[in-house]
């Protein structure tokens, strides 16, 4: 490795460093994303905010048990009120009559987006999204009620230009309009 270490002649060294700096001054290597005018369309397995499918969930509490920061709480629910039959997804049993059960609610102040809950769900009831840049104004928004939690997370900056990141030989990362 001695040839790697050999000190460079100061004059050559300074000239080469300055030349390289000048090259990048004229032709900068920017990989900036003009957020929020442009927002990224993220890969399908990106772990963003998620909600739960009320029809699929069986209230087994596995997600609550696996949650590392203990962000999930199970809230009591009564389904199938007044003995009426509630419509169930195709191919699944219909629920008749009032039945006590539980449903998960995520405290977004605690959630670390590890997706252990999404992966442990035996019926795959969680609906993952790629929304990751939500901001909360009030403390109560961090800890939604079950009804609020069921609403799919709304993407901020809906009118922004959607781009996907792409590996680029010249710039490392470049952004091009999403298909």
């Amino acid at each position, binding site marked *: *490795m*001695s040839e*790697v*270490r050999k*000190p*460079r002649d*100061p004059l050559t*060294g*300074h000239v*080469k*460093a300055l*030349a*390289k*700096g000048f090259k*990048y001054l004229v032709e900068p*290597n920017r*990989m900036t994303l003009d957020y929020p005018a442009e927002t990224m369309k*993220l*890969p399908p*397995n*990106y*772990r963003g905010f998620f909600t739960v499918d009320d029809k699929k969930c069986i209230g087994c509490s*596995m997600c609550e*048990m*696996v949650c*590392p*920061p203990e962000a999930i709480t199970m809230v009591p629910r009564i389904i199938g009120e007044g003995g009426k039959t509630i419509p169930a997804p195709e191919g699944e049993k219909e629920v008749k009559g009032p039945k006590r059960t539980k449903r998960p609610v995520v405290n977004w102040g605690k959630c*670390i*987006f*590890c*997706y*252990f809950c999404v*992966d*442990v*769900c*035996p*019926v*795959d009831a969680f609906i993952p999204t790629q929304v990751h840049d939500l901001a909360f104004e009030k403390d109560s928004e961090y800890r939604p009620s079950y009804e609020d939690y069921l609403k799919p997370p709304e993407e901020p900056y809906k009118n922004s230009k959607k781009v996907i*990141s*792409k*590996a*680029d*030989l*010249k*710039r*490392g*990362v470049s952004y091009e309009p999403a298909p």
Partner: protein
Amino acid sequence: MSEKVYNIDDLQNINVEGEKYIILQIGPSHPGSGHMRLKVWLDGDIIVKVDPDIGFVHRTSEWLSERREWIKAVPIVERIMLPDTVHANLAYVLTVEKLLGIEPPPRAQYLRSLVAEINRITSHLYGIGIFGIFLGSSTVYMWAFGDREPFIDLMEMLTGARITTSYIIPGGVRWDLPNGFKERAETVLQYMERRLKDYEDIWVKNPVVQARTINVGTLKKEDAIRLGVVGPNLRASGVYYDTRKHHPYAAYSNLDFEVPTMKNGDSYDRLLIRVEEIKQSIKLIRQILKDIPEGKIIADQIYNQLNPVMKKNYEEKKRVMFPAFMIHMRPPAGEASAKVEAGRGEIFFYIKSTGDKYPYRFRWVTPSFRNLPYFTHVTVGHRLADLPTIYGSIDYFPPEADR
């Protein structure tokens, strides 16, 4: 270096404040790569003693992990080593797998090595960038942090998260290679190879850098072994030791790579070794993507416990879901340890299980902790202006050292 010789053993009991030596507090809020405190005793501007305040950002990762189910320790260990998450995750999972007696399939082993090498490059670029800003070069700081981005994008594509991936689970990994990953990785690697030449001109062979780092903070081979430093810093002092080579894990026993070593052990060598290791990692990623075998990405013991919904997901989306075993895991009573070569050096894990649902004893030693002797032994006799050079060159990450 000063001409006066300071004997480190005589100076360990200095407590006269304001008389002969000036005591300088460096920190406590984020002076460098994290929250930390250095207490420096100065004779004029010559350093006579440095006391890194061990435990200043202690975050009880061991205590927390001993009071949780086994799987819940994965995010905890990751958050301690933020630039190096995959290696912390891998080291923990290897230990648990030894207790459980599970062997992951070959494809999972290759994927583990792949994501570990991508992470090693980001970790070294992080170290080079921090070293740059410590020497006052914001150019290389911006360059290195920018060039982490293509690699972090690769990690995001594969694992679904940029930094805290939680990708490796007992028995295998959580996602298979997505479509188009190989082509994208090849482009990124070619880009990085070209950029490394630019780094050489503007930073590595820059006469200013050479003047400030050569013969600064030298640690001789014998001292490096005696003090037990690890990782690139140890190899910079000329010791041929790499956990990947000497105690292979994941797919490293099937891969062909070199372990670069340097001779002098000064700050400049510690910079060069990181550049050389990035080159080796690039070589390794190419090799892994070429050789990666087909097959399952999760061990049969775990796969057989998946329910039909999960199996369908596995076949269609190449996504491994967790059986209930992941929550109720109770490894049989016993002890296990594992070693992993992380970006900054060797992580050592020791876990004792009593067959309960929590680990009985959870102990781990991180590389930055083992590199702390640099502060106490190498800085003595240097001028204060050389302290940032030494700090930057050892790639020290305080939250990791204090765990």
